[in-house]
């Protein structure tokens, strides 16, 4: 009988089966001793991508820091659903100050730990895309520029979901939000330049920048753990679908995150000191329609009054990402 390599992927999925891996190669979430940093009982919506992303990210950071971790949280869904007075889901020291200052609060915590000689205690800051790419952007850039010892995690659900689904600078073109309604000759969000915060973070030449999605949770854990092995300013943007804000089924969160990556709409990569060091290749390239159609925020692009030219413009964005980040496997360009 000829040699057959062990197949780590479960039948019909691209997910690595933990049971087939050695103990030390298994995911943080698979470990019974994981920190459960964001405990059950919080009030996130069914299918919330942010809750899933935060659970994996913070547990991974806890694992890597041996439980010596402090979190600063921006105002937003994550803060609101996790700490309704008098309850808290957080099993680690956690502070919420304001919407736009989580990076600076984290800088203060890191400074306090440094001055007290507690180099073992690490600091993460986290917020949604509104708190990161818009209102917290000044503080974020300052934290990057000083290379403060903080890992900032942005949970990107492409809009202000906590306040009722308004547009942020991370909202994609053509998307319907409460402030970019699908009316008029050019329905939905404008086709601007967008604000690509991972690239802006890279322009600060900080030690580590990465993107991830909740469809590739092992990749997410790997990136958080890698980031936690470094010192200085680090940034991870995690793509987290929002069933409520996107008008998508709760059971489609993982699927949409995967489609965002597989279409090229959300490039998944990592960069060190301003240079891309790896990309997560597209496995099965699909057209953007596949990603757009399950989401009501793009429903106005299809059906009776379809806007095929708008879909084509979105496809062009995906294609540009694919070219720019070289997202297709070798030989598939």
């Amino acid at each position: 009988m000829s040699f057959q390599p062990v197949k780590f992927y479960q039948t019909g999925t691209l997910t690595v089966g933990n049971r087939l891996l050695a103990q030390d190669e298994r995911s943080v979430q698979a470990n019974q001793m994981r920190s459960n940093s964001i405990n059950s009982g919080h009030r996130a919506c069914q299918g919330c991508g942010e809750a899933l992303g935060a659970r994996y990210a913070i547990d991974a950071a806890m694992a890597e820091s041996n439980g010596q971790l402090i979190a600063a949280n921006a105002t937003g869904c994550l803060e609101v659903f996790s700490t309704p007075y008098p309850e808290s889901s957080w099993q680690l020291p956690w502070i919420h100050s304001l919407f736009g200052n989580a990076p600076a609060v984290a800088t203060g915590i890191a400074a306090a730990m440094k001055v007290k000689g507690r180099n073992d205690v690490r600091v993460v800051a986290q917020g949604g895309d509104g708190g990161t790419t818009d209102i917290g952007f000044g503080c974020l850039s300052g934290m990057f520029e000083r290379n403060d010892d903080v890992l900032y995690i942005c949970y990107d659900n492409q809009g202000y979901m906590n306040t009722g689904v308004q547009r942020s600078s991370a909202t994609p073109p053509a998307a319907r939000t409460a402030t970019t309604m699908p009316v008029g000759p050019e329905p939905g969000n404008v086709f601007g330049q967008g604000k690509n915060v991972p690239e802006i973070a890279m322009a600060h030449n900080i030690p580590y920048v990465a993107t991830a999605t909740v469809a590739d949770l092992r990749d997410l854990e790997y990136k958080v753990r890698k980031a936690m092995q470094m010192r200085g300013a680090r940034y991870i943007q995690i793509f987290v679908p929002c069933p409520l804000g996107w008008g998508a089924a709760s059971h489609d969160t993982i699927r949409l995150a995967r489609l965002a990556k597989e279409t090229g709409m959300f490039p998944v990569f990592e960069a060190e000191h301003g240079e891309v060091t790896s990309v997560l290749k597209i496995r099965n390239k699909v057209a953007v329609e596949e990603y757009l159609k399950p989401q009501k925020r793009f429903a106005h692009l299809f059906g009776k009054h379809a806007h095929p030219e708008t879909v084509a413009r979105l496809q062009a964005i995906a294609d540009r990402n694919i070219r720019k980040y070289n997202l297709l496997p070798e030989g598939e360009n």
Partner: protein
Amino acid sequence: MLKQIEGSKAVAEAIALCRPEVICAYPISPQTHIVEGLGEMVKSGTLTPCEFINVESEFAAMSVAIGASAAGARAYTATASQGLLFMVEAVYNAAGLGLPIVMTVANRAIGAPINIWNDHSDSLSQRDSGWMQLFAETNQEAVDLHIQAFRLAEELSMPIMVCMDGFILTHAFERVDIPSQEQVDAYLPPFEPRQVLDPAEPMSIGAMVGPEAFMEVKYLAHAKQMQAIELIPKLADEFKQIFGRDSGGLIRTYQIEDAETVVIAMGSILGTIKDVVDEMRAEGHKIGVLGIISFRPFPLEQVRAALIKSKRFIVLEKSLAVGMGGIVATNVRMAVTGSGLRGFTAIAGLGGRAIPKSSLHKLFRQAEQEELEPVTFVDLDWAAVNKQLEREKQTRRSGPIAENMLHDKGIVGVSAKFG
């Protein structure tokens, strides 16, 4: 040790003696020399261990202080004017979270029109933020109040602004007794936080609070300031025992025992006022002075007790509640409710306008005769004001007010462009 020293440098030395662990610095006049002084001390290693962080805005300065304080570090920053306003959201947040941050406010006017000179508009805009506010009369008092402020803030777990007049104090070189490290250490113990971000004992700070408990949280902030009313005089007494001088407290009176007219003010102008009162006393006027050191908490009972034997008072303040009148005066009136005392408000010195003794002589005499309007604007150029009002009546496109004033008052050498 006695030193001939700039006010800002003296404050920087006092802060350093308080062993701050995290200092956040962002430049804004007239506060800048303080953090420059501290930055040099940290860089040279004379102030250690301490993290000195050059932040990108005042909003970040206060936010870094919030993080540092919540993580158990003694945190300090300084600001003024627009800077204080830029950090307002974080100012309220620091108080709401109950973090004992100490901040110097080098008092300066608020624009527009942009103006770097002294008045009290910046601090007083934050009177309801939950921060305690202590106003220094001299650079010696500014030094002493900072040392007391850390003690008071940490005792109550609430933040404090130490307010000192921009330029008039911050940039004035005068004799200041800088305490020794031993004295400060004897007075100010290491920071023992009431709440701290600690992996050994995880807690959530800054949870969302709905109607079921929000009022209680806010009341407790008020209760803390009521406790401060008791604590501030005690801390001043203790300060005197160690440092050997009267400094701080809630209020300070001068020649008030038999005074029929009492002048009330805050900050450095009290020096000029006392000189005028001395001169008027020499002429037989029964006039005295009440200086308010603690504006928040506002010492209602003490102010009332100081005034109750007089016949009238005049509040001379470097601030204006636009559309109403005085800010300090409103607080003083609250203190004397039902007393029947006549009270006058005098708005003076806005944007650094000089307050000369001659103007005060005239003002105080008018107050004695009760000839003043309820609100007086000291040394206001009525001709210029009336000219602009008339211009606005005559001309729709009357132009920018500030520029018109500069033209009309001859500061800019050509006549007004509009109207």
